């Protein structure tokens, strides 16, 4: 097995694993850049996965009757609804941590418990069991016409999910928004020095609400995409730590959208190694546990060694109280 074959095996699945993490980590960038710690990304992803799956199950039959085109829209509509609901749900975190000046980490932990509780309660209530059925209309992988025929690069990069391409594209959009627009400048200034921002007439609370709500929207997409490509149903174990991984990717990427995307791709790569390792000549003799823990150990090593001190936004985690110094 040549190196090209190995790459053709690993790269598509790395991108595939990374996509939900990229969405969610980008959401984290918005929230934390505005100065609000968002450890609730996990819960927001749970909410996205829950809504995505439930909407998909509900609308797939009526849309199916309307024809193939509408049926193929099912996962997209589900994800859109998941995005909206998760954004609304994240307002709880915003109210607690901005208006009520709650400890943001604590509020985030509460969001995680709350999302899972609500999701499982409603599943039990609506379906009378602990998990949903499998969805009929998940996301399917596609071979991009034309591009797929390019040798080597084609099968490596252009046999995948549309959602993955959107995720990568979105990272650049978020980079542009945060670094090249007035809105992004305001968002960052509120996270670095809210008093200075306030003096310049920026509404600190409004910016922070916006940051948190955007993180809810993005994490909702991430959760829905994850559920509709990987697990294809919703249970207590659908989202098992992906939100925390996205949080790690964001910090690993130094609170920068493109850095977060890079870190998410790295996690995806490590995860795909642990799954495909058994069919790769050099790796198949290594006990699988080492491949399983590799992404996490590598992250720790990378944080300690390569990138050094991560510089968080200065005002992160502290509520802004007008008039205090």
């Amino acid at each position, binding site marked *: 097995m040549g190196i090209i074959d190995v790459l053709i095996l690993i790269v598509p699945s790395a991108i595939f694993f990374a996509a939900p993490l990229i969405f969610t980590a980008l959401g984290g960038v918005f929230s934390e850049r505005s100065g609000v710690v968002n450890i609730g990304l996990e819960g927001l992803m749970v909410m996205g996965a829950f809504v995505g799956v439930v909407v998909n199950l509900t609308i797939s039959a009526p849309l199916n009757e309307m024809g193939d085109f509408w049926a193929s829209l099912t996962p997209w509509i589900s994800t859109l609804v998941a995005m909206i609901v998760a954004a609304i749900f994240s307002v*709880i975190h915003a109210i607690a941590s901005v208006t009520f000046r709650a400890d943001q980490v*604590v509020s985030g932990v509460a969001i995680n418990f709350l999302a899972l509780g609500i999701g499982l*309660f409603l599943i039990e209530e609506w379906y009378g069991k602990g998990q949903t059925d499998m969805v009929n209309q998940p996301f399917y992988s596609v071979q991009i016409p034309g591009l797929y025929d390019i040798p080597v690069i084609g099968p490596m990069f252009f046999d995948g999910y549309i959602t993955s391409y959107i995720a990568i594209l979105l990272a650049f959009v978020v980079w542009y928004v945060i670094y090249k627009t007035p809105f992004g400048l305001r968002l960052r200034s509120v996270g670095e020095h809210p008093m200075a921002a306030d003096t310049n007439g920026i509404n600190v609370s409004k910016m922070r609400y916006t940051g948190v709500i955007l993180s809810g929207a993005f994490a909702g997409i991430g959760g829905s995409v994850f559920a509709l490509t990987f697990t294809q149903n919703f249970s207590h174990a659908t989202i098992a730590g992906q939100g925390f991984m996205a949080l790690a990717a964001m910090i690993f990427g130094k609170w920068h959208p493109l850095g977060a995307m890079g870190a998410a791709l790295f996690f995806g790569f490590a995860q795909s190694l642990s799954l495909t390792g058994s069919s790769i000549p050099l790796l198949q003799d290594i006990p699988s546990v080492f491949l399983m823990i590799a992404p996490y150990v590598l992250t720790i090593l990378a*944080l300690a060694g390569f990138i050094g001190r991560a510089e968080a936004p200065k005002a992160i985690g502290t509520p802004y109280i007008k008039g205090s110094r």
Partner: protein
Amino acid sequence: MFSNNRLTNILIPVISVVLGLLSGAIIMLIFGYNPISGYAALWNGAFGDAYFFGETIVKVTPYILSGLAVAFAFRTGLFNIGVEGQVFVGWLAAVWVGTAMDLPMVIHLPLAILVAALAGGAWGFVPGFLKARFGVHEVIVSIMMNYVALYTCNALIRSVLTDNDDKTEYVNDSASLASTWLSDLTGFSRLHFGFIIAIIGAIIMWFILEKTVKGYELRAVGYNPHASKYAGMNVNRNIILSFIISGGFAGVAGAMEGLGTFQYMSVNNAFTNIGFDGIAVALLGGNAALGTVLAAFLFGTLKVGALNMSSSGVPQELVDIVVALIILFVASGYIIRWALSRFKKEEK
């Protein structure tokens, strides 16, 4: 800004619990259940007879210790979200000592618990050290360490402790916390002597933090690392020490499961949530020893009682919502303080 007296500090968690339970009742009403029969079923499921009571204590025991672990780190200004992984390694270490050795009970049982504490402490050392030495965020490292613990423990169970089995042997009687007397007393529940160890753990935490110089330093570092450094304390060493002690508590929590409740360790596909629930316990308990014990008791009661709620038709997940809301209310203590101060003013 607001009166910060003892009474308010006790009132906030109590008000939060009441608000949480009230919200639960409202949710039950919205979905057409009778909240009174729902909560009655919960109460019966936790205290209805000797068996349920025994199981409630079984649930409370590791909660106390994992809550102490989280609380101890919080007091030093650190967030140990890695309690989950530290519980795992403690559990595995205790079962390992419990199955591999044959010693008299007076040595074997304390040794197994001690090794569990050391294992948890060693797991806690990693995020503490990386935070102190390289300034790496402890939350991220501890989250990563949770996964490393989960997969490593599974691999060790499969390849070292057993021959490709999903479950270890039962621990030897000389390392077991189980007691037929306690079990008979509570209608053959799994009640074991662990709860005594949990209470001792709470006393130890209170003693270290409130009565020793080291504890004073740890708290000082939590309040203000810069001032502590200026006063001549070694902030970095205190960060590491706090994480080791915190991990030690978590390791003992794992030992409670390994030597008491289950007496073995099996391969886990996902986390047990003992550590994550410990975060909720510590927060409600105000990161104090006594508060943690009380909060563990409340959450243990809710979790065990929930299993019986389905007898009144209410999905047991309702309790998870209630727990989450309680934490949210505790976190939003500012607004409760504000309401209380308004209330007092009107009285005058």
